[in-house]
């Protein structure tokens, strides 16, 4: 068996990082983000990054760490509302942002990973999102052309992995991770725990090992909560 399991994030990212690169990351808000790999990317000092991620983290956590360190030039995201440092850099003209509707972003990452160069969606027709994009009629309705995204590197967070790098995600921490895992020219995964070969039911693999070139055990599983709501507080 080819050993794709690395000792730590620095080893797993060795040779993969370069200034000006595009990195796609799984996660929604702070849920299901590859904390360990993000920390290692911060420490590497790599700069001028384009990040493809639904959100931008918060000021001191998640991708917010890379923003705070001034390593990010451009974000492709659907929602960046929880990050003051993001706002400061954006208003200062230090940061570019390409907004994608959330479903379009998910589909663009899936498309990039699946060899689909572009696709037509109704989402965003007649809005600012449509500016500069081709429109085509299907069944008398206008649809927008959106393109697939392929990143230089994709980083994802999973719950369980076997030595073949078959991955299982946990609950809503799945979110963008499966598509991110497919859309990287190379994909590095971090996982909460390893299990033995043959332990994962072949019917229950979320991301087959073919998509994961390097794997580490997550050193950090802080799983910070953005909005802790408990039953005392309604619903």
């Amino acid at each position, binding site marked *: 068996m080819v050993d794709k399991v690395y000792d730590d994030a620095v080893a797993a990212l060795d040779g993969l990082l370069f200034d000006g690169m595009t990195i796609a990351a799984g996660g*929604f*808000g*702070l*849920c*299901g983000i590859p904390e360990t790999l993000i920390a290692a990317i911060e420490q590497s000092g790599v700069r001028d990054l384009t990040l493809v991620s*639904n959100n931008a983290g918060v000021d001191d956590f998640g991708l917010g760490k890379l923003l705070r360190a001034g390593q990010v030039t451009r974000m492709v*995201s*659907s*929602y*960046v*509302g*929880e990050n003051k440092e993001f*706002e400061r850099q*954006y*208003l200062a003209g230090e940061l570019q*942002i390409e*907004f994608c*509707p*959330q*479903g*379009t*972003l*998910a*589909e663009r*990452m*899936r498309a990039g990973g699946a060899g689909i160069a572009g696709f037509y*969606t*109704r*989402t*965003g*027709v*007649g*809005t*600012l*999102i449509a500016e500069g994009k081709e429109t085509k009629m299907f069944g008398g309705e206008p649809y927008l052309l959106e393109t697939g995204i392929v990143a230089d590197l994709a980083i994802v967070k999973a719950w369980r992995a076997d030595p073949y790098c078959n991955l299982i*995600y*946990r*609950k*809503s*921490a*799945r*979110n*963008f*991770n*499966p*598509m991110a895992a497919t859309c990287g020219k190379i994909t590095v995964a971090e996982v909460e725990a390893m299990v033995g070969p043959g332990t994962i039911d072949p019917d229950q693999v*979320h991301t087959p090992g073919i998509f994961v070139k390097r794997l580490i055990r997550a050193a950090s599983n802080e*799983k*910070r*909560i*953005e*909005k*802790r*709501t*408990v*039953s*005392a*507080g*309604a*619903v």
Partner: protein
Amino acid sequence: MGWTRDQMAAIAARELADGFYVNLGIGIPTLVANQIDPAIDVTLQSENGMLGLGPFPAEADVDPDIINAGKQTITELDRTSYVSSADSFGMIRGGHIDASILGAMEVAENGDLANWMVPGKMVKGPGGAMDLVAGVRRIIVLMDHVDKVGQPKFRKACSLPLTGTNVVDMLVTDRAIFRRENRQSPFCLTRLAPGVSIDELRAVTEADFNDTR
């Protein structure tokens, strides 16, 4: 005078039918969950990849891996399933969600909706709102009838950047209920809130509408 937010949520909740799959937006729409008739079976969907949302957890049961699209911690039910974001928006874009209840900054008389950005203010992004209005079969908007300075939010045309064109099927404000038969139809006033007269309503409504009470 007018309806409270809970009353608005209750009005929207009565639009939901047995067996519906429903996506609730952030803000007033979140209140709808509490107002659904226990006699009907409604499954709530959250666009971050959860189908079958339960209530907020007890303190001891908080799980950072179980959140809704508003990033709030929630719980799962015996019906719950998780999917990827791509598959979640497959449900939404593909027309499999029966209704979405959303907040708004402005609604226009042609059904246009604006709820994602205000020029000059920091833009946070559309999130999943554009996908929801483009794909969900029926869009119900809950919003205050006027803005903070008393200006109409139900307009002839939206002044703010659009979330979608001709996507609103029903509008519930604190002062009135407007419905339209389909997306070729004009909005019809079907009910006034208690203590609101038609003249008062017209005074704070820029949009044209038919009065079919």
